[in-house]
């Protein structure tokens, strides 16, 4: 180990990011420093509420948050150490492929970065909600109901005197959790249907397409309200329903697979005797990944809005669990008394969904500009 490498190593151990700055890798350096700052503030807030060591004695909801905080701090250090020893960008340029190229394009797109920052912020809030929330989200206080913003309650309080900001913070867990869970199912199930339909054609294809047609002929929101309204709602039910019936990815993947199927490399694979399963795994899936990624990113936004809409109608998340949709429902009831109430949850939904749409848009530009979404 040369002396220079040793200096970098020691610097990074002392303060992740400083080693990168020494080597003039400003972006990465400031990234790690910023990460450290956020984690520091989070730890400070957690410590102030006596929750930092929650993992050792408490069985409450802060356990996971504390654990994740430790893990993320550890990851910051290891990540910084790993990346400071790596080759610089210039040396690596020769090694770049499709995905690296797309990533580079993405990192220069203001739209994508803005969306990424919004999403990261929401994820951060969702994970560390117990640390950032000053009050308990379901603690009622009938002395202070329907108040406007104050130092104690930055976003005001609702009709039960619950702190709006804390409810927004905890509500992000519901929105992101269901949004991501349902979308993951959409991606796997819809992608699978699309790949099978596109690859095998004939009877299987027309069967799947007819199924999609039947499901698609009932407007999505009506279908989901119908199923949730009948079977009752729970978080699990919401994820399953949205996951199974959100079939927008299937059609797009199918049309992509249809074109991949006709390409020379698939013909070559077939000619050399590759099994269907191998061809799908090795050629079809990797090549249909780009549109799938774009569609899923946009789908998360759609799912978040649908969940909010369901909760708003009273078919979604049941009280007292804080969710943005049911907060808006309460806000509508008190629209005359306190019109301010509806602003924070609505902005939270809009910003989160906007974040995913921005990233989706930017992903499309980088990966597959011809995709019509």
């Amino acid at each position, binding site marked *: 180990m040369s002396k220079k490498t040793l200096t970098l190593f020691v610097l990074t151990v002392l303060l992740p990011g400083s080693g990168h700055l020494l080597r003039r890798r400003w972006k990465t350096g400031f990234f790690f420093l910023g990460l450290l700052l956020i984690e520091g503030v989070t730890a400070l807030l957690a410590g102030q509420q006596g929750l930092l060591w929650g993992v050792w004695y408490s069985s409450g909801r802060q356990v996971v948050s504390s654990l994740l905080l430790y893990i993320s701090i550890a990851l910051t250090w290891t990540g910084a150490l790993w990346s400071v020893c790596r080759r610089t960008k210039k040396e690596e340029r020769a090694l770049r492929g499709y995905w690296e190229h797309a990533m580079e394009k993405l990192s220069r797109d203001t739209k994508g970065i803005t969306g990424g920052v919004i999403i990261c912020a929401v994820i951060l809030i969702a994970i560390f909600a117990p640390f950032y929330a000053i009050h308990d989200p379901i603690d009622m206080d009938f002395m202070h109901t329907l108040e406007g913003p104050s130092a104690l309650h930055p976003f005001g309080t609702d009709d039960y005197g619950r702190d709006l900001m804390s409810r927004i913070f905890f509500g992000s867990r519901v929105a992101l959790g269901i949004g991501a869970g349902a979308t993951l199912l959409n991606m796997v199930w819809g992608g699978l249907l699309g790949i099978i339909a596109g690859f095998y054609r004939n009877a299987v294809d027309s069967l799947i397409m007819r199924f999609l047609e039947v499901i698609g002929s009932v407007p999505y929101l*009506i279908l989901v309200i119908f199923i949730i*309204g009948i079977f009752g709602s729970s978080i699990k039910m919401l994820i399953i329903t949205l996951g199974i019936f959100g079939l927008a990815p299937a059609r797009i993947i199918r049309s992509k697979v249809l074109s991949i199927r006709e390409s020379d490399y698939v013909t070559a694979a077939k000619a050399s005797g590759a099994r269907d399963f191998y061809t799908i795994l090795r050629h079809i899936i990797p090549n249909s990944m780009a549109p799938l990624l774009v569609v899923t990113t946009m789908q998360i936004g759609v799912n978040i809005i649908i969940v909010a809409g369901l909760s708003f*109608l009273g078919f979604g998340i049941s009280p007292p669990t804080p969710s943005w949709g049911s907060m*808006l429902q309460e806000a509508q009831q008190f629209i005359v008394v306190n019109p301010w109430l509806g602003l924070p949850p609505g902005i939270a939904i809009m910003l989160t969904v906007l974040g995913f749409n921005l990233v989706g848009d930017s992903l499309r530009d980088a990966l597959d500009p011809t995709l*019509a979404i």
Partner: protein
Amino acid sequence: MLSYAIRRVLQMILVLFFVSLLVFVFIKLAPGDPARLIAGMTATPDTVEIIRHEFGLDRPYHIQFARLLVGLFSARLKSLTYRAPIRDLVIERARASIELGLVALLLTVIISIPFGVISALTRGSPADYAISLLALVGISTPVFWLAIILMSVFGIHLGILPISGRGATIGGWSFVTLDGLRHLVIPGVALAAIQLALNTRLTRSSMLEILNQDYLRTARAKGVKTRVVIIKHAFRNAMLPVLTNVGIQIGGFLSGAVLTETVTAWPGLGRLMFEAISRRDEPLIIGLTFLSAFAAVFGYVVVDLLYALVDPRITYE
């Protein structure tokens, strides 16, 4: 052409059959007893049995389904909670829904197409960025929140628009009176918002695609004026996918209005759907789901057929 039309209509009927089957299966799979629900929690077992028999809920499933289909087409199916034929309920509410849908459609077409075209023609300019960002914000905004904001700003804060209901109507239409028109503004704008944003994006991308085509370059090269190229060559071709989308939206507006109509207390079909599901009114739910599926599928078929008429390149073999 005729045989294609017939085939499409047959396909449509098949799809609708499966939709009603799907809906029926889901309702039967659901937990809980509808007869008990209608009778109320305090009813005696005898009353529940009478109601069960009255609505035919004690028959075998295939007979129930057959009766349902017959009821749907003979329009004799009765709502459980309203105790009135579904047809009457739908007709009563349909005017409000059609009116609202048309206002939203008008707003969508008038605003989105010019904005999309401007955005595409000035690609990369501040105007393009502004329109694109606005459209993206539009598809990210929940309609019910938009309605609440409009209600609190224009209805309560400024006090210039009514916040709910339909206002004065003549013959079931509210757009013919000034009061009714004022009531239409907030729900109309809220309902239009998302489709407006989607349509702007679609118009933009469709125009951009056409602008890159060879025949446009040829037209310019042979000296056709820019305005003529854009209007005659680009715009008309770019409108095809946009009109498809508008056609599909017509079906969507009828039912996609559940949230908008619920939030603004607009007495249309969307609100009826909400009430039906809250009260678990099986026949009404089925009837309305069927109606919205019918509207959507009908929209698809009409657009498909119009396509064949408008675009001579498309022939259906």
